[in-house]
């Protein structure tokens, strides 16, 4: 049976095979995952030892979460076609819309991540900041409030971070029209990837040896979880209908195969996993090389999935290509 299809619709912009979400969305998903990872890891760190000694870098890095989140929201805003209507996100809550959930989660993350960052900031820097900032006494009272609830702030960060990490995957996973995305495993996969990039981001800075070892070991397990989830996601697509199999083909022989297996699987997962395992085995300290690769792989995963997902669809003409 052959199928020849022609369409006289003169509108490439509405063709489902064409991209409507571009680099901005991939960058937003990457940064969102990274922020999720930072929040979960630093939140867990505070739950584990809020009073214990920690490096100056680890004490200050939680501030990266709200800063990076702002960058992510800028990417998201740049992707909007009708940017002046952005406020509409906050005049509605649509329970069936992952994007609506995400908009509200992002808003809740600001105070939570700033509170955690404040709690982890060394006392001398807190005092210096309060002296220089306007409304110092008022901010000091707010800061004291956060300091009085160290554990609660940490738990809220872990929960919100996990929600953000899962949401970045669910945003794509609920799109039934795009078989490559339409999997419940995308949420856990993006969460694992976000946690891994969060750990890698922290490893890029001057942490002390104990912190590096712990984060390096955690990242190793997260990379392993990511590999398992990628295998499960591809397996899930392969055992479903023809449209899902055609979607899986995009990264299993199709146009995104080389990029996916080179940038995501090999450079982003297998090489850093091997590097971290060797360092762990020989009692070395995880270096920045593996961490850089994890970050590159995390970005590549989102970039490829955003683009490849839009090339997948139910339509017979897509299946026939």
């Amino acid at each position: 049976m052959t199928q020849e299809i022609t369409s006289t619709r003169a509108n490439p912009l509405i063709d489902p095979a064409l991209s409507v979400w571009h680099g901005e969305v991939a960058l937003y998903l990457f940064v969102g995952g990274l922020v999720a990872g930072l929040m979960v890891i630093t939140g867990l760190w505070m739950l584990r030892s809020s009073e214990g000694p920690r490096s100056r870098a680890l004490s200050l890095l939680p501030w990266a979460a709200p800063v990076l989140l702002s960058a992510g929201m800028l990417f998201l805003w740049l992707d909007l076609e009708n940017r002046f209507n952005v406020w509409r996100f906050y005049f509605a809550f649509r329970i069936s819309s992952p994007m609506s959930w995400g908009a509200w989660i992002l808003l809740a993350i600001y105070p939570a991540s700033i509170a955690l960052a404040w709690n982890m900031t060394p006392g001398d820097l807190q005092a210096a900041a309060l002296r220089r900032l306007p409304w110092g006494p008022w901010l000091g009272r707010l800061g004291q409030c956060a300091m009085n609830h160290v554990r609660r702030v940490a738990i809220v960060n872990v929960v919100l971070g996990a929600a953000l990490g899962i949401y970045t995957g669910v945003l794509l996973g609920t799109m039934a029209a795009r078989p490559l995305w339409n999997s419940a495993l995308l949420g856990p996969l993006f969460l694992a990837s976000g946690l891994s990039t969060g750990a890698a981001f922290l490893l890029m800075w001057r942490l002390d040896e104990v912190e590096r070892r712990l984060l390096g070991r955690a990242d190793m397990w997260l990379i392993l979880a990511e590999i398992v989830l990628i295998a499960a996601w591809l397996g899930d697509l392969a055992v479903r209908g023809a449209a899902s199999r055609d979607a899986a083909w995009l990264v299993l022989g199709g146009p995104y195969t080389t990029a996916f297996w080179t940038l995501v699987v090999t450079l982003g997962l297998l090489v850093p996993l091997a590097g971290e395992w060797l360092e762990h085995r020989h009692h070395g300290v995880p270096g920045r090389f593996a961490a850089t690769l994890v970050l590159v792989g995390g970005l590549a995963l989102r970039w490829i999935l955003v683009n490849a997902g839009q090339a997948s669809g139910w339509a017979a003409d897509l299946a026939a290509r």
Partner: protein
Amino acid sequence: MARDRKRYAMVIDTRTCVGCSACAIACKTENQVADGHSRVWIRTLTSGWYPALAMTVRSERCNQCTDAPCVRVCPTGASYYGPGGIVLVDPDKCTGCKACIAACPYGARFIDPATHTADKCTLCVHRLENDVPTTACQEICPTESIHVGDLADPSSEVSRLLAERDHYTLEPEAGTRPNLFYLR
């Protein structure tokens, strides 16, 4: 979601459609669709092994789904069910996030370059709800292949056609329960 008892549907006879594109042009004129964009298009499918080939010509557009993924994913409520279950877009609420475009399995939506908001077939709701019983595409169709009516009324032409003729919907596996039917 605001739904009344009416359930608008469109039925297109693929046996009589000749793919002349008059429906696409009438729609553009009636709704002043932006240049380079179209709410209606023609698809021609040829299938089978030579010489036993079969050809289907279809006039396609938004499927006015009963379970519309575009309405589900819209974060601001800009996509909604209008009169008779017609899926509509409120440009005042639309942020142009394109989630609805990504969610539509039929590729029926696009961004209007003038308003920067999502646009698509409205089933000429401005006509149907103002006592004009036809859509622009239906009115122009030279072979009378396009039928629009109320599926909730068993005596309507669309109900009768669906009761009498073999028909199908597009991508039923997407689970959207379309209200655009094609007669074989």
